[in-house]
Each structure stands twice: as structure tokens, then as C-alpha cells.
């Protein structure tokens, strides 16, 4: 039966396809005519699908599967329909059903690979390679693999492979077009524009938008967003009904801070394809952004939730200014326009801003000079997230991307950012996570030439985190051992070199020599600890367990062992914390002070520890240092209004009235429960600075809320010379 419909329908379907491939206007009526005439539901489904009748195609596929329940290909094709309308779970189920019937069903195998690719899952390349093992030379599989290899920078090899594919005689017109698009993408990433493959594709089908959209996607992966926008614009010019291209254009316009145009294209995309979650999510995000407050100054545009903006702006301003001064000098690049920084209250909103979908694992992203990230409300120090360090990390990307015209490799950009965090960031740390040390001890680090894969296609979930740390430490080594090495690397990337060539040209060593130097450096630095990782882990665990059981002498002893083995370790489970608690419980004040001091100096930011340290310093006369600790505490928890007000009190007591006023204003901006008191605090701070009229306005605001407020009435009298 299956053979029958293929033979019966093949001619007509092929005729319609030929019209479609040429971009001819008669394709849709052809499909509709075929659908009306087709007795076989599977053929009818194909025709309706191609005519754009998704619902009709779905119903016809359902009939086709009922009529031929053992036909794996029909199920696989139905799955592809679901993939087209973004219903991934249904698509996945149908591909799996098809493979249960026929484990070699190539459409299903490729469908699953495409699903995994879209979800940024690991092991996709291996999946496609498996398809090719079962179906050697399968055109679509070869082409999919080629696109993945392009993403990893294997441009020349891909070019050769695809050109060989085109030499085959039996290529269908659509396959030829798809191959041209891949070659056009290779040209785009190597700046060979205009590409001859574009002209060839458009000669074959004047509405073939993918010849621009596929290169655009590769440019996005290479973080060349402005160029990607131009290519997507060309894609929608070629085919104004390519809704996926409109959606991608909208998303990428947002990445270059062109919101109004972004909305227009997203709305077009939505009208054409209301099933695309990327479009719907991003349109909702635009509505959310309408409610954000914008803070601007020369060189900076900050957007944040309205009620948080005033509390966060001073810190964002300070770090952006510092980055402009320091990073511009270090990396030889100054952004032309303002750097845009968006801080999100909810992680999923940030994820939609970044990838169009919720559930993203990263916490910040930089699109050229647009930084988007989780704000301190989305994640906190308890989640291991230091928002200002993350901001500094992202700002470093602005400079490395800008210095290389977005041609920097992923690992190098991340490496410089991690190094910046550790050496120049708001919270400097020397601590290295244990997961990285374990990978080092087990020789699981990637060679520098393959380090990008650790970010783009990790082989296991922990590999991304390990790769960040590895890249950071490698950049630290380059900075320390090769004079001007970092900027030389940036210049090499800007000139279009890949990592291997950049290392040779900028550092004068082969990549494997750099790997050897790095390995030597790490073993020297962490050698003793690497041999004691289990002992260290055991001591940390013991210390925390004993502290939880309030067995203070045991906690103290285990924590001291752990700290002695790895004094820089101030991650969330740092042994300094049980050590400090034990010292406090046992009345060992001197040890408590020393422990909290060492923890703070090493970059530890646990709020309890910082509060205790500040209090101890206050008690022991270390007022200035206490304020420094308070400052770190408030930076860590910038949305805690009570904390900011308390900090203001301490600053006021120390005579630092400008800072006190800023702290009180931030506390007021955060919408405290007791607003009258917050206004009174601001009024007093204004008065301390001699700003009598500002003080008067603030005290009147306090009394407007609470006309019986004695302390405010007293201040009002004072302001009017009545006392």
C-alpha cells in the first residue's frame, strides 16, 4: 500500500515541489489540487502541509497512521510536521515511535538530532555521525553535520565536504539550495561577501530566504549580531513570508538594542506563525521591558525593574565607569556608543531575552555592547551568584567582543571575563571550584584548540563550568607569562585567525606547547592540594556536620584542617564558616576575628559572616574596616532595604553624610514598609549636608504620611528655627 501511494502521488508531488523550489507562484494551488485529489491520507497530509494547512495535514497524518500503523516513515513525517509547528514533545514521541518500528528510519533519526540541536544538548554530533554510519553519504545528514562543524569553526573542511556533495548527480533541487545556504554561511563567517552561492541559490529560487537566514544564524553563533541582523533583513526581503526569519530578525534586533524594529518583526512573525514560542515569549518580554525604568548617563543605558532601578543604579554606574577606564586601556577598545545593561528580576525573563525560551542555564549574556543578566532579585549569594561580579564578567565581554569585531573565540572571551572577575572585579577571589580541580587531577581538561567545544557542545553537564575556570586560568597564565599576550591574541582574532593560529602568532608557541605550560603551571600551583582533594572534601564535610550538630570543638578542629589545606577556598561550603561559628560558640574571639578577616579578604561574601565581622570590627575599634565590610554586604544584598538603611546609619555616625544619603535614598526607593521613617532618615541626611530645603521637603513627606510623627515634627521645628 505504501509503495502504491508513493508511485501514484510521486509525480504530482514532485511537480508541485518543483514549482515551490523555483519560487513559482503556482506551488500552493498545485498542492491544494493534489490534496483534494489524493485518496491516500499520507499523500494528502504532505500536500496540505506544503500548502500551509497545518491542521488539515495533522488530521490527514492521523488517518494515515491509523491506516498504516506499522509505517515508520509516515510517523516520522508526522513528527517533522510537529517539529515545524514547534510542538517538540509531540515530534519527539512520533520519532521515537517510528524508530521503535524501524530503528534505521532516517527521517526520525535526523528529527531527533535536530531536536537535540535546538535544545543545545550535548552529543548531537555523535547522533548525526551514527545516522551516517547507518546511511553512509545521506545528503541531509551530511549537510546537518556540516552546519554543526561550521559552528565549531571547521570552515575549510566544511566547504570541501559540501562542494563534494554538490558534485553528486542525484541531488534534489531543495537539497542543492540547502547546500548553497551552507556554503554561503561559510563565506559569511570568513567575510567573503558577496558570496557567489547566494546568487546561485536565488537564481534557482528567488524566494529562498535560507540563503541569508542560514548564514545569519552562524553569525549569531559567532556573536556577530549586527551582521546577522543585516542577513536576516535580506532573508525577509527575499521572502517576506518567512516567519521564522522575521522572528529571528526581531530577536536579534533586540540584541543590538533596536526595540521598536524588533517589535514590528516579531508581530509580523506572530501573525504568520502564532505557534512559535520564541516569538510569543519575546513579544511578552517586550511588554515587560516597557515597564522597566531606564537610567542613562554618557556611555551607559541601564534598564531594571522600576522599583529596583534607583537602588541598583549607583553600583551599575560605578562598575561601568570603572570598566570604561580600566578595560579600555587593558584591551585597547572603547565602545562607540553607550553600553546597555539590562537587569532582570526573574531568571526566566532573562532567559527569554537571551534565547527566546525559559530554562537557560547561564546567568548573563553579552550581545556586543548590550549586556543582559540576572539581577540580584533573580539569584542571590545563597545561590552562589554575586551579581556585581557577574556584571564585571559581562562588561569584559563588551571589550573583548568589541576589540575583535566579535571574532574572538568563545573560550578566550570567557577566559578574559573570568580572569577579570578574579583579578579586577568587585569581589576578587583566588578560589577555584573543586569540580575543576577534580577534572585537573583526572586529566579531563580540554586542549586549548578544543576548548570552545566545552562551551558550545559540552560532553557532560559539568564541562561548561570546568571550561569557564580553565579558560580563566589559561588567560591568567597568558597575562603573566606572555607580555602583551592577551591583547596580541585579541588582535589575532580580529584578523580572523582561529585559536591555533592566534596562539602561534600572538604568543609564539604552538597550541600543544601552551597546553603543556598550562598543565605545568596548574600542577605547580595546585599540586599539593590535588593529592589531598578527598582529604579536603572530607574535612569540609566533617566541619559542617559537626557545626550542624553544635559539636563545636570537633567543628573547629575539622575546619582548621580544611582551611590549612586550601585557605583560598571561599565558595558556598567554605570551611571558614563553620570555623567562625565554632570560634564564636567557644568564645575564641581572637580566632573568630582572624577567621572572619581571612574569609573576607579571600573574597568570601556569606551575609552572616560579613555581619558578624562588621559587628566585631565595630566592637574592637576597626570602624573604617567595618564600613568596608558593610559596603561589601550591601553590594551583595542591594535590594535589602533594611540593610541599606542600617548601613546609612553607620555611615552617618562616621560622618560620611554623602554616602549615608545615598544609602537612605536607596532604602527609600526600595519601598520600605515604614515610609515615614525612611523619609525622615533622608531628611536628616540632607540636613547634615546643609541641604535645608531638601531636608524640609523630605520631612514634610514623612509628616504627610504620619502627621503625628514626633521626631519628624521636631525636625520640622528645627528647620524653621524653632529650637
Amino acid at each position, binding site marked *: 500500500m505504501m509503495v502504491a501511494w508513493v508511485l501514484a502521488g510521486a509525480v504530482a508531488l514532485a511537480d508541485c515541489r518543483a514549482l515551490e523550489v523555483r519560487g513559482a507562484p503556482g506551488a500552493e494551488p498545485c498542492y491544494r489540487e493534489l490534496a483534494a485529489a489524493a485518496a491516500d491520507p499520507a499523500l494528502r497530509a504532505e500536500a496540505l502541509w506544503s500548502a500551509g494547512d497545518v491542521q488539515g495535514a495533522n488530521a490527514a497524518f492521523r488517518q494515515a497512521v491509523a491506516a498504516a500503523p506499522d509505517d515508520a516513515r509516515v510517523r516520522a513525517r508526522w513528527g517533522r510536521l510537529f517539529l515545524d509547528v514547534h510542538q517538540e514533545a509531540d515530534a519527539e514521541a512520533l520519532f521515537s515511535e517510528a524508530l521503535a518500528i524501524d530503528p534505521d528510519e532516517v527521517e526520525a533519526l535526523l528529527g531527533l538530532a535536530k531536536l537535540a540541536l535546538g535544545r543545545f544538548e550535548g552529543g548531537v554530533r555523535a547522533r548525526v555521525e551514527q545516522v551516517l554510519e547507518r546511511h553512509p553519504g545521506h545528503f541531509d545528514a551530511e549537510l546537518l553535520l556540516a552546519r554543526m562543524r561550521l559552528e565549531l569553526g571547521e570552515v575549510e573542511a566544511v566547504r570541501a565536504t559540501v562542494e563534494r556533495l554538490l558534485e553528486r548527480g542525484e541531488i534534489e533541487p531543495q537539497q542543492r539550495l540547502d547546500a548553497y545556504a551552507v556554503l554561503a554561511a561559510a563565506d559569511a563567517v570568513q567575510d567573503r561577501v558577496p558570496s557567489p552561492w547566494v546568487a546561485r541559490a536565488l537564481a534557482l529560487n528567488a524566494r529562498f530566504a535560507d540563503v541569508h537566514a542560514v548564514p545569519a544564524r552562524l553569525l549569531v553563533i559567532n556573536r556577530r549580531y549586527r551582521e546577522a541582523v543585516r542577513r536576516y533583513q535580506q532573508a525577509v526581503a527575499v521572502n517576506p513570508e518567512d516567519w521564522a526569519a522575521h522572528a529571528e530578525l526581531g530577536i536579534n534586533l533586540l540584541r543590538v538594542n533596536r526595540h521598536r524594529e524588533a517589535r514590528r518583526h516579531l508581530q509580523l512573525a506572530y501573525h504568520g506563525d502564532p505557534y512559535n514560542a520564541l516569538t510569543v515569549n519575546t513579544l511578552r518580554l517586550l511588554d515587560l521591558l516597557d515597564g522597566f525604568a531606564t537610567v542613562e548617563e554618557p556611555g551607559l543605558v541601564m534598564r531594571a525593574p522600576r522599583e529596583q532601578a534607583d537602588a541598583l543604579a549607583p553600583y551599575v554606574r560605578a562598575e561601568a565607569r570603572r570598566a570604561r577606564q580600566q578595560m579600555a586601556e587593558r584591551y585597547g577598545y572603547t565602545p562607540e556608543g553607550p553600553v546597555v545593561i539590562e537587569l532582570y528580576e526573574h531568571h526566566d525573563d532573562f532567559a527569554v531575552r537571551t534565547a527566546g525560551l525559559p530554562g537557560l542555564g547561564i546567568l548573563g549574556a553579552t550581545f556586543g555592547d548590550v549586556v543582559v543578566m540576572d539581577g540580584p532579585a533573580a539569584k542571590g549569594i545563597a545561590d552562589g551568584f554575586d551579581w556585581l561580579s557577574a556584571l564585571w564578567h559581562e562588561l569584559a565581554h563588551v571589550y573583548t567582543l568589541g576589540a575583535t569585531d566579535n571574532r574572538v573565540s568563545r573560550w578566550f572571551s570567557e577566559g578574559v571575563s573570568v580572569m577579570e572577575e578574579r583579578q579586577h572585579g568587585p569581589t576578587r577571589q583566588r578560589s577555584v571550584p573543586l569540580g575543576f580541580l577534580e577534572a585537573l587531577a583526572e586529566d579531563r581538561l580540554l586542549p586549548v584548540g578544543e576548548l570552545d567545544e566545552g562551551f558550545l557542545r559540552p560532553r557532560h553537564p559539568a564541562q561548561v563550568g570546568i571550561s569557564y575556570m580553565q579558560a580563566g586560568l589559561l588567560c591568567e597564565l597568558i597575562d603573566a607569562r606572555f607580555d602583551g599576550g592577551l591583547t596580541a591574541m585579541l588582535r589575532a582574532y580580529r584578523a580572523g585567525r582561529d585559536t591555533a593560529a592566534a596562539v602561534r602568532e600572538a604568543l609564539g608557541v604552538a597550541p600543544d606547547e601552551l597546553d603543556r605550560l598550562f598543565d605545568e603551571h596548574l600542577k605547580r600551583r595546585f599540586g599539593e592540594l590535588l593529592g589531598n582533594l578527598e582529604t579536603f572534601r572530607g574535612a569540609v564535610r566533617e566541619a559542617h556536620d559537626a557545626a550542624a550538630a553544635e559539636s563545636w570543638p570537633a567543628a573547629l578542629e575539622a575546619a582548621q584542617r580544611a582551611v590549612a589545606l586550601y585557605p583560598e577556598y571561599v565558595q558556598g561550603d567554605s570551611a571558614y564558616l563553620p570555623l567562625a561559628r565554632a570560634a564564636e560558640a567557644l568564645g575564641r574571639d581572637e580566632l573568630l576575628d582572624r577567621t572572619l578577616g581571612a574569609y573576607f579578604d579571600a573574597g568570601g561574601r556569606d551575609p552572616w559572616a560579613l555581619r558578624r565581622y562588621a559587628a566585631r570590627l565595630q566592637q574592637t575599634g576597626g570602624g573604617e574596616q567595618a564600613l568596608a565590610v558593610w559596603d561589601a554586604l550591601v553590594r551583595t544584598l542591594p535590594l535589602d532595604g533594611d540593610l541599606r538603611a542600617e548601613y546609612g546609619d553607620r555611615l552617618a555616625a562616621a560622618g560620611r553624610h554623602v554616602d549615608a544619603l545615598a544609602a537612605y535614598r536607596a532604602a527609600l526607593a526600595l519601598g520600605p514598609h*515604614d515610609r515615614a521613617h525612611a523619609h525622615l532618615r533622608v531628611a536628616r541626611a540632607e540636613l547634615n549636608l546643609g541641604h535645608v530645603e531638601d531636608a524640609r521637603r523630605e520631612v514634610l513627606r514623612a509628616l504627610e504620611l504620619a502627621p*503625628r510623627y514626633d521626631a519628624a515634627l521636631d525636625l520640622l521645628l528645627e528647620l524653621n528655627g524653632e529650637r
Partner: protein
Amino acid sequence: MKLVFTLVSLLAAAGAFAETRALVIAGLGGTPEYETEFQRQAHESAERLRALAADVVVLAGPEASRERLQGELAALSRRAAAGDTAVVLLIGHGSFDDRDYRFNLPGPDPTGADLAAWLAELRAERQLVVVATSASGALQELFADPRRAVITATRSGGERNVTVFSHYFTAALSDASADTDKDGYVSSVEAFRFAETAVAGHYEQRKQMATEHPVLDGPEIPLQLARLDGGAEPSPLPAGAGERLAELEAEIAALKANKEDYEPDDYYARLQSLLLEVALLRRQPGTDGS
């Protein structure tokens, strides 16, 4: 010194001889930690209420049985005259089986219907009932009465998890930041708003979905629950000062209500003028003890 205003408003609201009478009950904890915590909250709340109430009865531990609760409510009903204010505060665990609410006490638990029937006997014209338990939202409708404001820790009977509302409601009675109008007293509304905000912050800080949403429903009852600043008695007002202060307060309220009609500078100038008179009046000999 600051208490002159409050005295004015209390007298205005409740009549010269009105009294506040309260009953506080700590229910069954279920674990030693909750047992201790509920009793602490009950005793602490009672202590704060005593500064203003004519009498406060506390039931906690084994004493807090269904029979004792019923008996004490009946006694409260006998003691409280029509012009008085009755305050009933229930702290502990509650449950709701989609039909009946039950307040967990040693021995048999009273149902929502039991509590409603006993409360219906109260003669006081102004009543505040606070049910700071899980599932207490189920009682809102059952307890509705034109004389009664009802505060529950949850918005429905379906919010069945242990609540933290009572912790913050108790804290409100001694926290200066709960007193948002700065009259030196924590009113029932202020205590509720303080606890409501704190409950939301409690879950937000822990990045947990809030499993309780407090509700205040019923008539607006101007009721001061606790006095701040160590509970000093108000100083007597000089002759005529109370009346003028009340007038000034009314003028300030009217000005605020029509704020949009004024240019900002004009508005604040008028406000300042009124407030300066308030401030000076307040400093008259005899009002501040100086």
C-alpha cells in the same frame, strides 16, 4: 508626650468608658518547637495587649482545650459591654477537609462552625478576630459580621501548610516600624499590614512560593492593639489643645485629599503651615512633660 493624639482618636472612636477585652489562645504545636513557639507568641501578644486592654486572658498548653475556649469566650461575652471592643487571637495549626475548618487543640478540636457560634454570642459592638493558623481563610465567610473585622493567615482553606503569619503579627505589636502613622501605637490594620509584608518577604527571601496569603476583611475598626515606647501613659492635654489638634488633623487630611489641586510648592507650604502649628501646640507646657 506624643500620646495626646492617640487619646483623642481613641476617645472619639470608642466613647469615654469603652474598654478592650481580649482572649488569646495558643493551640496544639504538634512538636516541641511549635508548642514552645506558639506559647511564646501567645504570651508575648497578651503582654503587648495588656498595655491597652482592660483584661487579657491567655489559654495555652493543656489548658487550651475546646471546653476552656468555649467557656472563656462565654466569659468574655459576659464581661464585654456593648460599647466595648473584643479581641480574640487564635494562634496555632488549623486544618480544612474541604468542608470543615478545625482549630487544633488538646482533646477534641472546635470546628469553624463551633467558633462562629460562640463568637456570635459576643455582645461587643466592635470585634477583632485574628485566626493565625493554616487553612484559616476558610473562616472568612463563616465569621463575617457587621461588627467584626476578621484577620486570617491564609486566603482560603486550601492553604494548609504551616503558616508564619502569627510570628510576624506578634512581632508587629512591639516593632516601631509597624507603626506607620507614627502615633506611638500599633493598630490592628498596621499590625496586619506589617505581618502581610513580612510574610511575603519571608517567602521571597527563601525563593519559595508563598503558601499563605493573609486577609483582613470586615468593617474598618479603629483599634489600637499595642503601645510602643515602653507603654507610658499619655500626658494630659492642656485645655483646648485637644480640640485644636483634632481640627488641624482634619485640615491636613483635607489638604492631602485635594493634593492634585495644588502646585507642589504651594501644597507643601500649606502642609508645613498646618504641621508647624501642630508641632508648636504639641510643645505647650503640660503636653510633653517638660
